[in-house]
């Protein structure tokens, strides 16, 4: 009986199995054949496309697998497809990355770890059991630690990796501690069971508050929310830029998936919420307010510190912290609209943030520098690159007619709808603050002349195609955004949420 159910359930687990297979295959290929960069990246692409195709049949399925360890539902499917798109994008980025050219001999490890990280994100998005969640998070994190230090010849890359490990270890330690207390209090690691116990049994405030704070450290580390963000700038700056991009988009999204699923399933009163029509918090502490404060801190600190950055990678790191803050605005309310707005924002953020990083990468390839001064006069030296960057930055600021505006619109609308007025107000003020540093880049590109005779940056056709593939959605979704909104609205269906 057991074997049959497991076998039946394995059908829904095919995407993960494909990724596992790809991982092994790439490792073996790297170890035993002469295939190097193009071979392994092709394998990665094939694997991720196969996984993508195999995820498609699970759309609309709602099922709990392996004794409640993971859930297959629209929410998970959304994040699976999201991370696969990121993976494909990053693989294509990597082919053009100058930093990685020096270490082509080790490219098998690089791609294998990327695949492993994606697998971890798959599981993060679908875990409905605390143990599974921790395992998934560790799989993602461990791969990320190594990848951050992948160009180990560069001192700052090793430094980034070490810092990342230290912070990550502390964060997961605290998270585990919180989980163990929660287990002690409720006697279960299953989300739904914990939720049930919380709803039925009166539990004292202090240990629950402790659990909540400890879990928040773990989640906050993953989405780099202030005050758990201090690893982000150094790691983003030191890691190879492809990895930085992957961390700032896919890893962050997976962190959000984990956070949303946990709070939605564990900390919301399911029965009362259905009756009331909006989410009613369950814990005896005001965790929504705590999240709201976290959101405000995250976006404000991210934006304020970004104002002074000279290194673009670092600047974008702080900007990504701020964006995590914006997304937390949507999370706070835990209404369907709020969660949908986060999903909308993530899709939009995927294109604009990857685009901005791609431009930084291309410029760094040619000039060897990520300093804001190297962007002076880029508007005349390489108009296409500069215009693309401008569109991405304007979108990151949230000005129409770019997709970023739609993302912000949905987030603030969700906050207003759930009556978090002050949160929405602080959110929009922050987007004005953000304008200043994004425009600083635009100013350097167009308003200033380059200091010395710098050669023009010519783009390869591959780079142009990649840029275009990110530029078009950034603009089109700004004007015609029904598709992403529809997808987001359909993707909030979570197993166990009535």
């Amino acid at each position, binding site marked *: 009986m057991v074997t049959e159910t497991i076998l039946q359930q394995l059908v829904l687990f095919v995407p993960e199995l494909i990724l596992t297979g790809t991982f092994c295959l790439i490792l073996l290929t790297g170890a035993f054949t002469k295939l190097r960069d193009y071979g392994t990246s092709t394998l990665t692409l094939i694997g991720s496309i196969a996984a993508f195709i195999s995820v498609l049949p699970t759309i609309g399925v709602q099922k709990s697998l392996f004794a409640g360890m993971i859930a297959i539902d629209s929410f998970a499917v959304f994040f699976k497809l999201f991370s696969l798109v990121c993976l494909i994008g990053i693989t294509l980025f990597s082919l053009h990355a100058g930093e990685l050219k020096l270490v082509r001999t080790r490219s098998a490890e690089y791609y294998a770890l990327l695949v492993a990280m994606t697998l971890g994100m798959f599981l993060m998005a679908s875990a409905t059991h605390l143990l599974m969640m921790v395992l998934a998070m560790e799989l993602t994190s461990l791969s990320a630690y190594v990848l951050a230090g992948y160009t180990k010849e560069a001192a700052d890359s090793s430094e980034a990796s070490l810092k990342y490990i230290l912070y990550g270890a502390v964060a997961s330690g605290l998270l585990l501690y919180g989980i163990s207390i929660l287990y002690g209090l409720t006697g279960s690691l299953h989300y739904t069971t914990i939720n049930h116990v919380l709803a039925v049994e009166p539990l004292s405030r202090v240990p629950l508050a402790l659990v909540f704070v400890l879990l928040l450290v773990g989640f906050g580390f993953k989405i780099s929310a202030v005050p758990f963000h201090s690893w982000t700038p150094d790691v983003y700056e030191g890691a190879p830029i492809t990895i930085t991009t992957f961390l700032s988009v896919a890893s962050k999204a997976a962190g959000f998936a984990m956070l949303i699923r946990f709070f939605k399933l564990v900390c919301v009163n399911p029965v009362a919420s259905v009756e009331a*029509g909006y989410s009613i918090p369950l814990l005896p502490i005001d965790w929504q307010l705590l999240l709201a404060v976290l959101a405000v801190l995250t976006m404000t600190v991210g934006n304020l510190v970004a104002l002074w950055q000279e290194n673009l990678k670092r600047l974008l790191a702080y900007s990504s912290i701020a964006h995590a803050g914006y997304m937390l605005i949507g999370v706070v309310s835990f*209404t*369907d*609209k709020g969660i*949908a707005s986060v999903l909308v924002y993530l899709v939009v953020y995927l294109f604009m943030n990857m685009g901005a990083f791609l431009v930084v990468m291309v410029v760094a390839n040619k000039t060897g520098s990520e300093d804001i001064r190297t962007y002076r006069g880029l*508007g*005349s030296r390489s108009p296409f690159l500069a215009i693309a960057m*401008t569109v991405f930055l*304007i979108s990151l*600021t949230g*000005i*129409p*007619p770019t997709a970023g*505006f739609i993302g912000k*619109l949905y987030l*603030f*609308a969700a906050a*207003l*709808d759930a009556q978090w007025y002050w949160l*929405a*107000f602080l959110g*929009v*003020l922050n*987007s*004005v603050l953000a*304008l*200043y540093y994004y*425009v600083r880049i*635009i*100013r350097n590109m*167009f*308003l200033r002349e380059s200091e010395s005779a710098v050669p023009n940056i010519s783009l390869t056709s591959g780079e142009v195609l990649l840029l275009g593939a990110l530029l078009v959605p950034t603009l089109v979704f700004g004007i*015609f*955004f*029904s598709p992403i*909104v*529809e997808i987001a*609205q*359909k993707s909030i269906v979570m197993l166990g949420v009535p």
Partner: protein
Amino acid sequence: MTIQILGLGILSWITFIPLLGMVAVLCMPKHAHVAMKWTAAVVTLVQVILAAVIYFNFNPTLSGINTLDGMQFVERLTWIDLQSNTSFGRIHIEYFLGIDGLSMPMVLLTALISFIAVFASWNIDKALKGYIAMLLLLDTGMMGVFVALDFFLFYVFWEVMLLPMYFLIGIWGGPRREYAAIKFFLYTLAGSVLMLLAMLALYFSVVVVDPATGEKIHTFNMLAMMNPANYEPNSLLAGIGTTMRAIAYLALFIGFAIKVPIFPFHTWLPDAHVEAPTAISVILAGVLLKMGTYGLLRISYPMFPEMAQQYVVPLAILAAINIIYGALCAMAQRDFKKLIAYSSISHMGIVLLGMCALNSQGMVGAVLQMFNHGTITAMLFLIVGVLYDRAHIRDLDAFGGLALTMPKYTGVTTVAFFAALGLPGLSGFISEAFSFLGAFQNESIRLITIISTVGIILTAAYMLWTLQRVFLGHPHEKWRSLPDVSPRELFTLVPLAVIVIVLGIYPSLMINFMASSLNHLVDIVVRGSIHTTVLQF
């Protein structure tokens, strides 16, 4: 009344033709300067012709504002329509264009000023391709703001203008251009995000029932937002005179006030004006400032009538400050351009005062003043540009006796100056007189009106003093060789001068077209007369 050209409504054409021009310009080779300039000229000329067609086909009896059948040249298409599922309501955003007596003068003004701005920038050489592209994009944004009747669409157009304006000031401006450009950008964005929140609050409060399915739809439709019956009970902005409504009104007000600009949000204006190239100053003063007051009249007034009434006195006080403070600041300037910039603040104060009157005279005066100030101040900035192009300084005290060497220039300048100070017979007089007349009739702001009339004297003082300093007296040796105004410059100045004079003598050409709409607007605000429009989806 609708006019279709190639299956598209005339308002779409007038809005998006500059965008087509922009695409064409972007496709041209880098050094095809002549072709680019002429493309821009042709595109804006077509715009002027379309504006003229609209003007001559405009039905002055229809009132518009909050009635669908009163709107003219309406174009209404569904833009975004997401069917509702589970907890999401149906999302409905329309591509909804239309004009009435309030927006028609602005459409004319925008077309005209854009056309003139193209010729005023004929001498630009630096990165011309980018310049023309940005100018045309800006044009689309401006026109779109005045024809949009869906708040979402309005907001998109409103924001589309920011980036081109930033580049136009920041790349082609004067020495402190970077500072001025970012200041403009930050100020305007700060205002518009507040507007965004107010817009969302309105969206969540207003519900329209789809007659086909009986489904409740939230909408961005401005006309629906003007009907109190559409506000869902217990929603954010339901009711009359609630605190939430006051907050929303304030948020909208700040958004628009920054654009006008109303004291204390005005500090970006002198910087932006002084640093911007001539053509951009012309657009900035001629069209962009009007968007603030237009927004107040189009959105704040009819959607929050009780607030508009309640806050008449504070608004009038701000108007008086604008008038007098602007004039005093203008008087203290030695920089010609800065003087004109401050005079804009003063003149926009008159628009505000007229709006505060809440009666036909005041309202007509205000809208007419918006149009007239657009033409007059455009002339003034062109005049400054003419002088600056020759002398490369703008210090008023450095000049003198230019009347002897540049007689034609002096003639045009005199017309503009006298129009600006409100000399009877020129257009400025009519609108200022109407504004003050209307404001005087409103008893609650009578005292403020009386005080603000000091502004007229101050305006006369600084205008005449400037005239004296620059054109009269002994000619400086240094400026003896300045050539008189060129035919191209005359071509930009004369049409405006003609309009100024014609409207000064026969203002009905404008007033007739807007009276009906503005009366209706006054009705809405004062008597709450609402002609309910059932919106079809």
